[in-house]
């Protein structure tokens, strides 16, 4: 039946899935390995070098990331100058794994998709390094922080530049490790250490999908390289393709905090704020979207898996938005929002050829405006003695004008104010979703309205209204190292939409994800945009009516509806995990632990005791080991004779 569906779909939308077939890297592209090697070097120097590098280490780390960014720009310019079908470049470094038929190379792949990611990772990453120079200035373990940041950048680059699923897996876990180390950076706080472990363990559940996916891909194709798999995908059975699709989706859910593996992201806000901006907003959490888009040759042939992707995206975009509405911790609002925005990207990537480019487009603009807002939140915390509770803010626009203005640019971008980057990228997703599936489109549209509500609430509680901070807190603007990155990111948040000029990003990504005839809605795009803007406006107005017009109490009111309580508790995601997974596992462990001591071992020790008591045996063995051994051998020999007699009979 699914086969019929496939052929039906392919006949409706005649698409050709591009095959990954890179040419050998030369010229500036031959330096591809160096893009990764620079931050690796930084991490090694800072982490192995120890205290000696305290003074100059953070500066070096920042410089190296900008070095990678420079290379990224040069390579980007190089492929832009090439013809469209010459933009896939591969580099073989060495043979990594070889067993029987399976050959995994330490191979890199540079194509339009990875080109954009390299720019995002090293560009935003570099800015966040600069910001951290100011933010972490008084932290005694600053050097280590920068070492971990470089490690993260290196791993993320491996993730997007690998030419093989196993290489992607390497980067995948590398960013997971960096995330673990950075969430738990202030590990003297038990809550931070617990959050770090939670993030790692939930991500391991996603790895479940990655590990099994690699197994199934090899069993199906006899290779795990993107080139080999994309070439042979058309010959695989539907069952295999759908299974691979769902396994990769599971992996994506873990890394991108999508339902049902979303529970770790809000706790991850325990990490220093630059980490939240870089890892838990702009880059790492979008790896799931990258994986789906990169595996377009699988998903194009597995419509059932694509439907799964759409469902997950819709659930999560609403789930995250609802959480964002009820939290008072500014970082957790932004985390809920991140979850929701990635939901949009996942939804778009589930729409197939029509959506891949828009998923990546939104991923880039979100990288700009969300990093901007997270850094802005870090700046407000920096100015208010690390308070994160928005109920203790109010009127910060007076004390922190730069932070306010840059944050406002991010705000306008995320709610989709016409002309700002988020307007273009989100609009495209909602529109494409409506064209394919009205239910998904409706979810996305409602989500946009809710986004308008919670972001307006955040703005009003933080920057407007009355001053609500303690008398001994003196809000002040942050130093230049922090505000300059904010200004740059704010500019990108405003202007990011230019990527869509003349459908540039769609054409640029076409060699990776394929070309597609645009599907047209019954109404004109302009009218559609107007509807979307009205929905957002409703959300904004509701926020103004409920938050802006009244005084915000310093303590969260407790006599609230069930819905609010549920949203504050992250829709009981943790409770569900506990009830379904954690508690049963812990019970099993307790039971097994007891059984291991009694049943299995007890039987063995019981045998020994029945022979003459274990203590007596051990005493005898200690007194005259050799003699006992001889006796044991003798007994054994007797047993052998008996056995042989039995056999001979």
């Amino acid at each position: 039946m699914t086969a019929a569906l496939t052929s039906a779909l392919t006949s409706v939308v005649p698409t050709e899935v591009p095959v990954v077939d890179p040419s050998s890297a030369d010229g500036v592209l031959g330096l591809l390995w160096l893009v990764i090697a620079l931050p690796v070097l930084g991490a090694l120097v800072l982490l192995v070098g120890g205290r000696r590098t305290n003074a100059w280490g953070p500066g070096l780390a920042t410089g190296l990331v900008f070095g990678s960014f420079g290379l990224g720009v040069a390579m980007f310019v190089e492929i832009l100058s090439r013809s469209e079908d010459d933009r896939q470049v591969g580099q073989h470094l060495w043979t990594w794994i070889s067993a029987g038929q399976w050959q995994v190379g330490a191979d890199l792949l540079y194509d339009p998709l990875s080109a954009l990611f390299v720019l995002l990772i090293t560009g935003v990453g570099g800015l966040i390094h600069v910001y951290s120079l100011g933010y972490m200035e008084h932290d005694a373990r600053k050097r280590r922080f920068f070492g971990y940041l470089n490690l993260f950048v290196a791993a993320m680059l491996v993730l997007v530049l690998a030419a093989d699923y196993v290489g992607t897996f390497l980067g995948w876990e590398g960013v997971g490790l960096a995330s673990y180390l950075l969430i738990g950076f202030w590990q003297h706080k038990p809550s931070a250490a617990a959050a770090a472990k939670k993030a790692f363990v939930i991500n391991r559940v996603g790895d479940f999908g990655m590990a099994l996916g690699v197994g199934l891909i090899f069993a199906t194709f006899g290779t795990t390289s993107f080139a080999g798999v994309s070439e042979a995908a058309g010959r695989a059975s539907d069952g295999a393709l759908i299974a691979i699709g769902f396994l990769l989706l599971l992996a994506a859910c873990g890394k991108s905090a999508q339902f049902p593996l979303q529970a770790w992201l809000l706790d991850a806000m325990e990490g220093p704020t630059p980490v939240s901006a870089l890892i838990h907003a702009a880059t790492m959490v979008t790896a799931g979207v990258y994986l789906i888009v990169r595996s377009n040759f699988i998903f194009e042939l597995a419509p059932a898996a694509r439907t799964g992707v759409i469902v997950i995206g819709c659930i999560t975009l609403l789930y995250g938005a609802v959480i964002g509405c009820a939290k008072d911790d500014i970082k957790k609002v932004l985390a809920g929002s991140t979850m929701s925005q990635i939901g949009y990207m996942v939804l778009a990537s589930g729409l197939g050829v029509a959506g891949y480019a828009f998923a990546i487009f939104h991923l880039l603009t979100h990288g700009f405006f969300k990093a901007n807002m997270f850094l802005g939140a870090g700046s407000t915390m920096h100015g208010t003695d690390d308070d994160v509770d928005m109920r203790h803010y109010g009127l910060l626009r007076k004390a922190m004008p730069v932070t306010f203005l840059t944050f406002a640019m991010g705000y306008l971008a995320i709610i989709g104010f016409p002309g700002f980057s988020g307007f273009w990228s989100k609009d495209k997703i909602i529109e494409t979703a409506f064209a394919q599936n009205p239910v998904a489109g409706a979810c996305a549209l409602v989500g946009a309205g809710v986004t308008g509500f919670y972001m307006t609430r955040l703005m009003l509680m933080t920057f407007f209204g009355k001053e609500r901070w303690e008398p001994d807190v003196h809000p002040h603007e942050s130093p230049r190292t922090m505000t300059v990155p904010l200004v740059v990111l704010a500019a990108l948040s405003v202007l990011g939409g230019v990527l869509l000029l003349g459908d540039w990003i769609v054409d640029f990504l076409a060699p990776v994800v394929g070309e597609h005839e645009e599907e047209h809605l019954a109404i004109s795009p302009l009218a559609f945009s107007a509807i979307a803007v009205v929905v957002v406006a409703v959300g904004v107005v509701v926020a103004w009516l409920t938050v802006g017009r009244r005084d915000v109490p310093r303590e969260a009111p407790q006599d609230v509806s069930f819905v609010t309580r549920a949203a504050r508790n992250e829709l009981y995601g943790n409770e569900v995990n506990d009830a379904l997974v954690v508690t049963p596992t812990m019970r099993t462990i307790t039971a097994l632990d007891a059984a291991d001591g009694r049943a299995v071992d007890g039987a063995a020790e019981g045998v020994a005791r029945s022979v003459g008591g274990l203590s007596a045996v051990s005493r005898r063995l200690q007194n005259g080991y050799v003699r006992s051994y001889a006796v044991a051998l003798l007994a054994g020999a007797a047993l052998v004779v008996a056995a042989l007699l039995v056999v001979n009979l």
Partner: protein
Amino acid sequence: MLTALLLVPLVGGLVVAFAPTRRNPLLTKQLALVVSLAVLVLAVVIAVGYDPGGGMQYVEEISWISAFGTHYALGVDGLGLALVLLTAVLTPIVILAAWNDGDEGRWGTGTYFGFLLGLEALSLGVFAATDVFLFYVLFEATLIPTYFLIGGWGGPDRARAAAKLLIYNLLGGLVMLVAVIGLYVESAKAGTPSYLLSDLSNLDLSTGVERWLFVGFFIAFAIKAPMFPVHTWLPDATQQGTPGVSVMLVSILDKIGTFGMLRYCLGIFPDASQWATPVVIVLALISILYGALVAIGQDDMMRLIGLTSVSHFGFIVIGIFVFNSQGQSGSTLYMVNHGISTAALFLVAGFLVKRRRSQLISDYGGVEKVAPVLAGFLLLSGLSVLSLPGMATFVSELLVLVGAWVEHPWIAIVAVPGIVLAAVYVLRMYQRTMTGPVAPGVEVVTDLRPREVVAAVPLIVLLVVLGFYPKPLLDVIDPYVQDTLSHVGKADPAPAVGSAPESRADSAGSDQ
């Protein structure tokens, strides 16, 4: 050459234990270290001269008891070489890490290091023996130094742990002895009796006899490995033994179990091995999950690490019994990697225990604040135990999982929760001991001394280097695995897209 490899640690061990230098502990330790380094040099020379093309090399063969057909016969192939190298690398590191462990025991420092070197000699012999009888004798003999090392230098309940180890392993050994004698009977029936592996692997056995003899060997190896349900001696032994002895036990001696399965069970009883596969796989899957779950519940670090090995040996056994290149290469590599990573974790945890004088996780907290280098090493070794990509263990675990999937998806699906549980037991231990506020009593923990750093660094470096460049090992392992597979009569299945293109005939048109 191989005889020299065995004699150096054996004679060296005797000298360390009995020469007049034993009255001077420092000199004794230095001597032991020099001997173990000499063994390492020899092993490296052997590895360099080894032809990666495969086959049994450095063969030595002298008739021993001609009436029984036993020989003093040695040789190494890819499998043997990998484990010989592992043994030769780990022993000097253990000696360096356990520098002062021998000082507070029932006997003197010299005896401790003498036993360690003796154990190294016997283990090398086990991995190099190509005669079943010689193998059996050495296999049993390894128990003697192990027993004394645990019983003489371990924790408060060491006598019981040592006795338990002995009873379990002797029992396994006796069952194997039956099978070894059975082999003689069969070999004699076929003509001249011979215990040479090369003769026995071509022995024509009737199905029933082959199965009985297989079971005899397998039980001994399963106890040694150890597999569920005969694993319980191991956590007791690691809990009571000193960290260095636990490394010798878990990283090297336990490998004899999986080594034996590959070399003897598959080598002499190929058909019976395939007959037993369903049961073996089920037991191995239980081992993976059971070992990991019980490990999560432990408060004693050394016991916890011992139990993680039960889980990891489950993976190794699965790789062996899925009968394909990925699985068996993965398993062989896994033996080496597991040896290194578990050694790292045992030794670093041992450094910690030595300082605070407690093995209980609940006695610790916030160690990272007072000893950041120690915490860093514990984290790195922990990450390798949970098979993080980039660490050597990842390559082998992935190979085993992929091999399992190729054989049957359900094996992989049941095994893979093991990787989630591994993250839980490693990070739970790290979180509770290293992070949070400094627990009372932990202030005394000092950071690692240079000697300890020197012992731990090679292990971490090896884990990272082999994580990115396992090729030198895989190159010698692969020919061995291909030989084994062809001996067993199994070939790798072709990938699905190669073998059945017609299954997608319905959509073939759209592919053109």
